[in-house]
């Protein structure tokens, strides 16, 4: 089996989609790793559902005793650090930002994505229940939705599917899917393979993808930096 990108490498590739001044909301899992790979000198303004913009990095394990404070957390409940220029607001204002199209980019985890860009990510697999949380508002309303995921499930089944089999988070919302073997753009014509992980061929990626992939004219190897 060929090598796949690590979760960190997926996050690194996604970090290349950010831009200076971008307002970004990161979901839990792989998405939360993106903040570690923002290029030096670029200001990214992080938004968290519980009402903060522009806060700093997550408190590291070694700083916990000194810096952890339950009154400064992100949407995953992780302790974060204060930063000059940050500000606070309440939940209705926070989702007014999301719903009003003021969040430039959200990066979300994936159970399934189909070729129209429908995203399913809120039901716990196999439990028949799930948490909607803030993900649905983000998927419906962020200006750009990036799906971050392994290309296949643990049992090797494609996560890019023809038809989602679990309840949707939002229809036709995903703009870009970044996986451990490919970068795929959702277009009006279908899924377009834009980039491949080192060593992977179009055919190998297609074999792990349910819908037919269109191949970008400028198809290239994934660049992480």
């Amino acid at each position: 089996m060929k090598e796949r990108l690590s979760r960190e490498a997926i996050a690194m590739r996604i970090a290349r989609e950010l831009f200076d001044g971008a307002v970004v909301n990161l979901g839990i899992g792989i998405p939360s790793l993106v903040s570690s790979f923002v290029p030096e000198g670029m200001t990214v303004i992080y938004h968290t559902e519980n009402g903060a913009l522009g806060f700093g990095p997550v408190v590291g394990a070694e700083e916990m005793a000194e810096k952890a404070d339950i009154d400064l957390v992100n949407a995953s409940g992780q302790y974060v650090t204060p930063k000059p220029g940050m500000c606070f607001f309440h939940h209705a204002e926070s989702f007014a930002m999301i719903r009003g199209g003021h969040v430039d980019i959200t990066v979300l985890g994936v159970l399934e994505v189909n070729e129209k860009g429908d995203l399913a990510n809120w039901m716990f697999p196999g439990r028949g229940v799930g948490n909607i949380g803030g993900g649905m508002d983000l998927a419906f309303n962020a200006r750009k939705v990036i799906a971050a995921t392994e290309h296949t499930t643990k049992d090797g089944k494609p996560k890019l599917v023809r038809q989602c089999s679990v309840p949707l988070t939002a229809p036709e919302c995903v703009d870009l899917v970044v996986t451990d073997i490919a970068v795929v753009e959702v277009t009006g014509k279908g899924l377009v393979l834009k980039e491949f992980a080192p060593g992977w061929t179009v055919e190998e990626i297609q074999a792990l993808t349910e819908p037919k992939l269109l191949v970008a004219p400028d198809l290239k190897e994934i660049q992480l930096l």
Partner: protein
Amino acid sequence: MVNKVVVTFEEAVADIPNGAVIMVGNFAGPGGTPYYLIKALARQGARGLTIIANTAGGIGLTLDYDDHRVLFENRQVKKVIASFPFSTSPSRPSSAEKQILAGEVELEILPQGTLAEKIRAGGAGIPAFYTPTGVETVIEKGKERRYFDGRPCLLEHALKADYAFVRAHKADKMGNLVYRGTMRQFNPIMATAARVTIAEVDRVVEAGDLDPEAVVTPGIFVNRIVQVKEDPGFPRRLERSFWVRQA
């Protein structure tokens, strides 16, 4: 002089009847959660409650502590309206989760932004509004769809409550509240949407001791204030400000 201070949490929740609808500030950990008001309500024992909160308690996302899960453990709740009702750990389902799956507690699940906006609408005298969030998902069930500029949206109705339990940093005696960092979350909007709002705070000060430009919840929304008397031991550095300047 207006003075809304109540000495004990017991007093503050004493009149809550069976069947009350209660909003509870809560999000990803104990910050901004009215911990002692919830405990007092658990002791008080009112039953058949409807709880409106982001979670149904005990989701285990971060610190394990007694949030409104204790109300479910006590079987005081008949209905919960939430966006994040289930434990994130399948091996440790919350009391609410078990009761919901057993059909003992009714769940209304909502997208978080819709939940927040419905509460805001309840306080703002807006009976209903349209939002794009939820179209073509399970959320659409039973709701009216209508198109605005070609985009499908759902009609959502305001939420109001009999009581709101909110957590703030400081209150003046008139009920003006300031928060600290991400404590705000649902608290300021819940304070506007209940008939009786009870605030649990770190410190009560005199009118005039809070910067009028930094008051988030105007005192007219707050009916009772109770000051926390003990340290529950959560990681917290009240002596340190989150206001940091450039190096």
